[in-house]
């Protein structure tokens, strides 16, 4: 059974059709890319899947269960995590707290136990801290644990966002232009990291990327959006020479 099924997803902002009849079937373990020019509707697709917006029309199913209408945290708890196109860390909080906050729903102690700092509370807090530090280790961020998130260098902030997303223990990870603002060396390392994470955490991934070069490198399958419409989908090779894709990217008359 597919992990994620999106059927006829359509979304309007007022009169603007941001996403039109978007369909996607995602098998467990796949790494799929979504590309398209500015304003094509890519981020909106993520916002619809994660419950930030409620779609005007369409279905979103995870393991065959409907996600439309759930609050975002409930969707996250079903196993979908994401990062943001423009970094949205909890800037004034410590790096450690950024990750610990994402463990919110794993906590079993009651608010009363939180008041009293009971034995159980201490034990669970210790586990949460260990788990968060383990993630920081993986992303080479442990030495920043106490620093405010806003004081991290840009690349580290991007990695922290991924670490924070993984702390929610997702099965499906949505990455919104993770390579934005990175230099070629950093991009290369990021691509390796994504592939490693995918194996290590057994993730299914949807990757939005502006730069075709990146997606071509690691995605098995690509879907191309333009003005909300899916104009092409297929293997990277097929996409590369697809006339409508070239047209969308380079303008009419080129293809």
């Amino acid at each position, binding site marked *: 059974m597919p992990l994620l099924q999106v059927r006829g997803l359509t979304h309007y902002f007022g009169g603007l059709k941001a996403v039109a009849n978007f369909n996607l079937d995602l098998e467990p373990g796949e790494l799929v890319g979504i590309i398209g020019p500015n304003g094509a509707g890519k981020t909106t697709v993520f916002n619809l899947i994660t419950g930030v917006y409620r779609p005007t029309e369409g279905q979103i199913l995870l393991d065959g269960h409907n996600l439309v209408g759930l*609050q975002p945290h409930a969707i996250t708890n079903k196993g979908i995590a994401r990062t943001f196109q423009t970094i*949205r860390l909890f800037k004034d909080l410590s790096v450690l707290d950024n990750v610990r906050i994402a463990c919110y729903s794993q906590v079993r102690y009651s608010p009363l136990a*939180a008041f009293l700092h009971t034995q159980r509370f201490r034990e669970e807090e210790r586990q949460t801290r260990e788990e968060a530090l383990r993630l920081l280790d993986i992303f080479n961020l*442990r*030495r920043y644990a106490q620093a405010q998130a806003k004081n991290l260098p840009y690349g580290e902030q991007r990695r922290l966002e991924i670490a924070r997303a993984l702390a929610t223990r997702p099965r499906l990870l949505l990455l919104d232009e993770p390579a934005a603002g990175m230099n070629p060396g950093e991009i290369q390392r990021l691509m390796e990291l994504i592939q490693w994470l995918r194996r290590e955490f057994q993730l299914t991934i949807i990757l939005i990327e502006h730069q075709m070069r990146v997606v071509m490198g690691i995605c098995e399958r690509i879907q191309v959006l333009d003005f909300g419409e899916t104009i092409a989908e297929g293997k990277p090779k097929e996409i590369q020479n697809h006339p409508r894709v070239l047209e969308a990217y380079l303008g009419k008359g080129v293809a």
Partner: protein
Amino acid sequence: MNRRWWLPLILALLFLLSILLPHFGILNLYLQQVLMYVGINIILTISLNLVNGYMGEFSVGHAGFMAIGAYISSLLTVWVFPKSWGPFVFPLVLILGGLGAALAGLIVAFPSFKTRGDYLAIVTLAFNMIIKSVLENIEAIGGPRGFMGMSKLTNVAWVYVWVLITIFAIRNFVFSAYGRGILSIREDEVAAELVSVNTRQTKILAFVISSFFAGIAGGLFAHVLQFINPRSFTILKSTDVLVMVYLGGIGSIMGSILGASIYTILLELLRPLGVWRWVVGPLLLVILMVTRPRGIMGLREARWLLPAEEVQADAAVTS
């Protein structure tokens, strides 16, 4: 092992002093009264800080919750329980007043699901005004003339105990997953939801806890003054609490202790100004919001208020 052995010691010593100094007349009645107001204001400030400082909302009706606690506890001690029981049932009475206020907090939490910032401020402002008008219109509890007949059940020691309960309850709560959820709402509510924080649950908790302690403060206040009327709980009173929060510093318990102490004593010293001293609060609030919106402590906490486990674990991380 425990590097904080001195903390309980100092707190216990202060407790002894809070009983002995008044008992032997070393603190005169006036100073006792000022001290009790300082304590009550600390409770009000820390509790409002949870919503305005830690969570980053802008609630401006804290006196409304205080009023509910003040009236419920007063009605209980005057009408329900025999006068002679007063000292024994006082803690229970305060808690019931706090629970009444908490219920109102629960109701105010719901609009906060959908609105933020200015709009939520208007909701809490309206709440404060509604409470005041309702109290003014119930003749049975004195209407605009107010309600009296309470014994002076509040003393320095009781205030001290409730200040400690407030400090450590809210400190503990802030340093928990729920507390971090509250912080994440201040930082970025949408991102908080998307990393699994149930922001509705968190907001309910913050408002309920905040108003509970405001209710406790109201009960203590009513049993110092032995007389309450709706005009004690107007927007002006709420403004005072706002000033103390933003003066001391948002997101800091030590800040609230400082803010409440400094402001209460300042107002006491300005008594000769007469009615003009009521201009000081709103004026100070405007100046603070423009020049130093984060206050004296602004998001920093005094070391003695950090949980020992956090300090030890943090030290382990960096070493």
